[in-house]
């Protein structure tokens, strides 16, 4: 059937089962938005800013495990996506961004709202495309989705010149299972040894690791983002129980292993618990699953786990030995590798080793300082009052670390946070995406006052679509994490980190048509949170906390993992 490019695009999205799009229209993407009106089955969420749309698509992908989709126009619309794309790329989140560009004959002439977005996003996408011919459009969209979701997932961008959206071509629907048999994708599939699936792990590698585990007296597991991405919670827990090994959890791995499990040692790395970091230093075998040993985990790669044989399990071969030298690795999907390991492992016991590790603290104890609420009191109250399966989207900074240290996540996708890229302003957009993807869950957006100010324009999206997202602002009147670094490493000179200025977040919320509360006492917070959950609409609770509260413990960047600057 002959169709316009815009219609072909929409038909391809239907093929992929897309029912939610986050986006923002504009001049070049006009025809796509016009065609969107003919697809009532696809819900479009108009955000306040393209960055919010991209974060929402990312949050949707992280919370649901599916692919997030966002639309933006050319030029500034496309560049506004960039931070969102980079955020998704660093955390391996499958997002397909569709931008339109100026008409092909105008390309390269510095036309109005023209930008080389494929050039700009090259380093931050798994792959990107400029669709020059309408003949290629359908197969390009199919390939883009296949690439975004398979292997190690990641964002993909498709840039479509405006004329391609109006031209017509023959379109024939193809079911998703058959996409790999057509066009360029078919060649790609031929080149990779396994079709869309992750490579099947080498059984000899598995057996070797089983032997290493049997020989180990002090094994340690690290639960990384790959466990969350593969939704391998159950398999990971089984492995931990079988080996009877303590488990350190990375920021991206939070939720992959139940935080309240008796084997969990808490966060590992810069703000890792004493138990986690001491275990890394003392273990004789460290098995990292889906963890790339970033500089926030392996602070000093040379001394990291210096007494241990390090084993990496990852789907991406290029991660092996990238940051930390390993003695063994297994390539494959975390879930499959863990299944194979579990099949081959007997029940082991490591009581003495566990006694040693758990003689250290798995959590930081904070003083309850007089009249001010402490972050931990707030988080404990949230854990008490909110349903246990609530989804938490965070921004970046102190509140993020406190939340990951003190909320005990129970399942993959429960925490939506920008771990790799550390994008302030990520949280609200991501919370919107998570709420749209998981309407059955309560979504709580945890923010700092600095992060929240960056993208709080998305409160209009929360209000318009009546999304019951609750924003809890940890308001210390400062860029707390930077201030903490200044306190510890700049001799206490606080340069440009004091936010002794507005706005009044409660009144901002009201201006957006949402309920807003400012609380300074714990009882008031508890009451405000209960009311917010009960009312079922979006709400902002602005909580005053102390400006000098720090994230503890902390190990300085580049230091040995046990060199705590502060306990």
């Amino acid at each position, binding site marked *: 059937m002959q169709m316009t490019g815009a219609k072909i695009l929409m038909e391809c999205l239907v093929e992929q089962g897309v029912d939610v799009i986050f986006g923002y229209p504009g001049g070049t993407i006009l025809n796509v938005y016009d065609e969107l009106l003919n697809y009532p089955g696809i819900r479009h969420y108009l955000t306040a800013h393209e960055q919010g749309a991209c974060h929402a698509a990312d949050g949707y992908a992280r919370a649901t495990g599916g692919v997030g989709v966002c639309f933006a126009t050319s030029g500034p619309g496309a560049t506004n996506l960039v931070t969102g794309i980079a955020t998704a790329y660093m955390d391996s989140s499958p997002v397909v961004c569709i931008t339109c560009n100026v008409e092909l004959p105008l390309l390269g002439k510095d036309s109005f709202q023209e930008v080389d977005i494929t050039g700009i996003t*090259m380093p931050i996408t798994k792959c990107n495309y400029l669709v020059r011919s309408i003949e290629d459009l359908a197969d390009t969209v199919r390939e883009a989705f296949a*690439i975004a979701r398979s292997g*190690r997932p990641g964002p993909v961008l498709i840039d479509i010149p405006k004329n391609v959206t109006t031209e017509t071509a023959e379109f024939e629907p193809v079911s998703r299972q058959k996409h790999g048999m057509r066009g360029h994708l078919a060649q790609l599939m031929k080149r990779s*040894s396994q079709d869309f699936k992750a*490579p099947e792990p080498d059984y000899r590698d598995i057996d070797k690791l089983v032997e290493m585990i049997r020989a180990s007296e002090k094994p340690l597991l690290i639960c990384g983002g790959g466990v969350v991405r593969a939704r391998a919670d159950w398999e990971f827990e089984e492995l931990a129980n079988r080996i009877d090994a303590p488990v350190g959890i990375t920021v991206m791995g939070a939720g992959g292993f139940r935080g309240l499990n008796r084997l969990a040692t808490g966060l590992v790395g810069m703000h890792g618990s004493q138990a986690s970091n001491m275990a890394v230093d003392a273990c004789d075998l460290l098995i990292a699953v889906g963890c790339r040993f970033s500089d926030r985990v392996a602070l000093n790669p040379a001394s990291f786990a210096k007494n241990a044989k390090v084993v990496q399990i990852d789907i991406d071969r290029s991660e092996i030995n990238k940051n930390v030298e390993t003695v063994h690795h297994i390539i494959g999907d975390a879930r499959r590798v863990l299944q194979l390991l579990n099949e081959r492992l007997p029940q082991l016991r490591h009581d003495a080793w566990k006694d040693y590790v758990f003689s250290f603290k798995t959590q930081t104890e904070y003083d309850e300082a007089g009249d001010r609420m402490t972050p931990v009191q707030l988080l404990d109250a949230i854990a008490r009052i909110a349903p246990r399966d609530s989804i938490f989207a965070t921004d970046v900074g102190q509140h993020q670390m406190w939340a990951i240290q003190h909320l005990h996540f129970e399942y993959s996708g429960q925490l939506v946070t920008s771990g790799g890229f550390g994008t302030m302003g990520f949280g609200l957009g991501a919370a919107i995406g998570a709420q749209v993807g998981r309407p059955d869950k309560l979504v709580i957006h945890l923010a700092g006052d600095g992060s929240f100010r960056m993208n709080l324009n998305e409160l209009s999206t929360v209000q318009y679509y009546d999304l019951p997202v609750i924003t809890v602002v940890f308001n210390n009147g400062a860029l707390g994490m930077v201030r903490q670094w200044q306190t510890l490493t700049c001799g206490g000179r606080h340069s440009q980190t004091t936010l002794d200025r507005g706005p009044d977040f409660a009144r901002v919320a009201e201006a957006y048509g949402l309920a807003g509360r400012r609380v300074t006492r714990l009882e008031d917070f508890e009451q405000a949170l209960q009311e917010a959950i009960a009312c079922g609409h979006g709400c902002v609770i602005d909580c005053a906390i102390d400006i000098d509260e720090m994230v503890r413990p902390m190990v300085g960047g580049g230091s040995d993992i046990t060199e705590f600057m502060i306990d």
Partner: protein
Amino acid sequence: MSEVTRHTLAVLVDNEAGVLSRVARLFSGKGYNIESLAVGTTHDPAVSRITIEVLADDRQARLIRMQLRKLICVHSVKRLPPERSIRRELVLIKVSAPTHEARNEIIQIANVFRSSIIDVSTGSLTIAVIGDESKAEAIQNLLGEFGILELVRTGIVALERGQYTIDEQTKEKGEFDYGKNVL
């Protein structure tokens, strides 16, 4: 950290716009300096072959190969060790030759190197040399005293010796098992 040496990488890629910048970006993004780069189509018009020479230690070179293989536009990547491959580049050198004697002497040097004179004018000679970088360097040194006016090199191209090709599966662990690209 192991010794930094010159690594020759052969990369088969889609013959499409933007592919070269994707590949080159990977090197600049990771802070590696490309010593030499040559691109051209192959016997299959849909496929181009890029030969890249880069200074790196073994670990870095391995990471580069892994990163290259992740690019969707990359079909295959192979390291060509110097002892098992033939490497050539074409160098064009324009030399100042104002006198009869100079011209004669330059022609003699060119003959010794089995290179050809491809252009002659009253004041200059242009010589085409094919060889690896040591040959190019040697003739460059000899011609230096006459005054090199201009010099251009194509960059090294390389093939593996013997019957093996870039598509050949090898048993080298970490090189070709599990496929070249994890989609």
